[in-house]
């Protein structure tokens, strides 16, 4: 029988790498939105269904990671980041995956056919939102470096720059959202009203992806400010 060294048992489980893992899963989930939208816009519903299933699986995996982290998040006061900030960032990340699943579910559920005029803009808009989540992931991935440097110095500037960039991307998505809405508004009279209603819904949800990514970033900023 070998006793474990207690110097080592002193180290609690770090919340940093699970949080990063979760964000990685969320990102691979949200990325599927592009192939999904492409399939849906081409009205290839079998392919869309496949991608939607993939999204659902990834969302489930992210959910499992979230539960795991919530259960095992150390309580001690000697954590480099506050428990609340970690949980809040986790919640935002989780919402990104949920939203992704909702978007795919709604589009496929209603066999939603977007007018050809807005397809390209819609894809551009979605891509930019995914840029935002990718940027959020980039920033979250700096957390272990931040712990290493004790949340000081050059590394902090680096992360702050990343978050400024994230904010800029999010502003882009807002502008794109307006453009997509305008395009839809121009076409809405020719479409079935209930469909249009849900299309506005989908547009809003895609925009939420960018918003949520930005909120992950601002949680990270709060960790820096502590």
């Amino acid at each position, binding site marked *: 029988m070998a*006793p474990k060294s207690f110097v*080592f048992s002193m180290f609690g489980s*770090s919340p940093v790498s699970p949080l990063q893992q979760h964000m990685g899963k969320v990102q691979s989930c949200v990325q599927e939105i592009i192939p999904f939208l492409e399939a849906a816009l081409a009205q290839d519903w079998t392919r869309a269904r496949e991608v939607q299933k993939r999204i659902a699986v990834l969302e489930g995996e992210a959910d499992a990671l979230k539960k795991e982290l919530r259960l095992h998040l150390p309580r*001690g006061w000697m954590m480099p980041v506050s428990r609340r900030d970690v949980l809040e960032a986790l919640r935002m990340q989780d919402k990104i995956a949920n939203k992704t699943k909702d978007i795919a579910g709604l589009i496929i559920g209603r066999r939603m056919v977007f007018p050809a005029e807005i397809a390209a803009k819609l894809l551009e808009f979605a891509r930019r939102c995914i840029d935002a989540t990718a940027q959020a992931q980039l920033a979250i991935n700096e957390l272990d470096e931040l*712990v290493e440097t004790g949340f000081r110095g*050059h590394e902090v500037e680096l992360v702050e720059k990343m978050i400024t960039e994230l904010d800029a991307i999010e502003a882009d998505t807002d502008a794109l959202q307006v453009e997509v809405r305008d395009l839809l508004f121009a076409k809405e009279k020719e479409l079935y009203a209930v469909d249009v209603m849900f299309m506005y819904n989908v547009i809003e949800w895609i925009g939420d992806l960018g918003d949520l990514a930005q909120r992950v970033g601002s949680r990270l900023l709060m960790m820096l400010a502590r």
Partner: protein
Amino acid sequence: MEYATIYIVLAVAFGLFMAWGVGANDVANAMGTSVGSGALTARQAIVIAAIFEFTGAYLAGGAVTETIRSGMIDANLLAGQPELLVYGMLASLLAAAIWLLVASHFGWPVSTTHSIVGAIVGFAAVGLGMEAVKWGKIGSIVMSWVISPALAGIIAYWLFQSVQKFILDTENPLKNAKRYVPVYIFLVGFIVALVTLTKGLKHVGLHISTGQSYLYAVITGAVTMLIGIYAISRLRFDPKADRDFHFANVEKVFGVLMIVTACAMAFAHGSNDVANAVGPLAAIISVIQSGGEVASKAAMPAWVLLLGGIGIVFGLATFGYKVMATVGRGITELTPSRGFAATLAAAGTVVLASGTGLPISTTHTLVGGVLGVGLARGIAALNLEVVRAIFLSWIVTLPAGAILAIVFFFLLKGIFG
């Protein structure tokens, strides 16, 4: 002294048992940070520990043994009855060794120093009466339990802060790591050499002036630094490794430093904890060799220190291996830069304390060092429940050692008396 030979055989046997326990239990923690941070493999750690524990025990282990053996109890009370001292010391050795074995089995974090101090105090209080114990001396030892982790914690805190300021928080951490890590290496070599020269080498019979010891310490530090610079120059850096974790290559440089600190830690550990095993042994031998005369101080025979060193290395190789292998797997929170700060702080504190004769525990200082790095926000998370448990076990060990020693004392008295 009709059973003189038996006493010596028993004393040597118990002393080896105790040294084995020290090697098996404490060394896992002393070397654990190096293995856990990935700077050393378990096998390399054993080789390093074997060499430096041994040299530490042999070169600097003299001062502490004085305190353990004669400083805590009033030798005058024993003048007429040398057997009592022999029984007591035998009982203390056996009690501490058994407590160590039990605790190791259950994985409890105990200090070998606590065990032996508790045991000696227990036997003295019961066998000789409360007044035989020099409570003032005990008080200063108890104080060291507070001071040593605190001191190690503060040193570790500042060390890690300096690492962050000079290396990690800069624009080009790798370049700065190559520049400053040799300075830390110099520091390690210098401190260890200085304390060994000024305090530890007295019993070897080497008499050198303060100026000379500073000179030698500087030379030792410089030599260590040169070896370190050579080792760093031979490192291969992989820019790709930095993509996931930007400090991957910086940590490689710290890995070299970690190896140096691991040597220092093993040295510090050997110099301090060999006393736990051989202090009582030396007391028994001095009583028997002088034909029953209880001196308040006696020369520490070199072969006794040697025996302690061998016992520690043996324990380390047989049982410590397993412990370190367990530790070496699945621990990611400790990087070489953090491990270095914690370990050097602990080693420095132990070596300093060893020079002043206070039997402090390596375990305590290491815990203090780790806490210090944690406070510098350098560790991703600390498990405070475990820290609490550790503090608790520090308190428990003392009475446990005492009770066991009392039992064995009366047992031995019954057999031989």
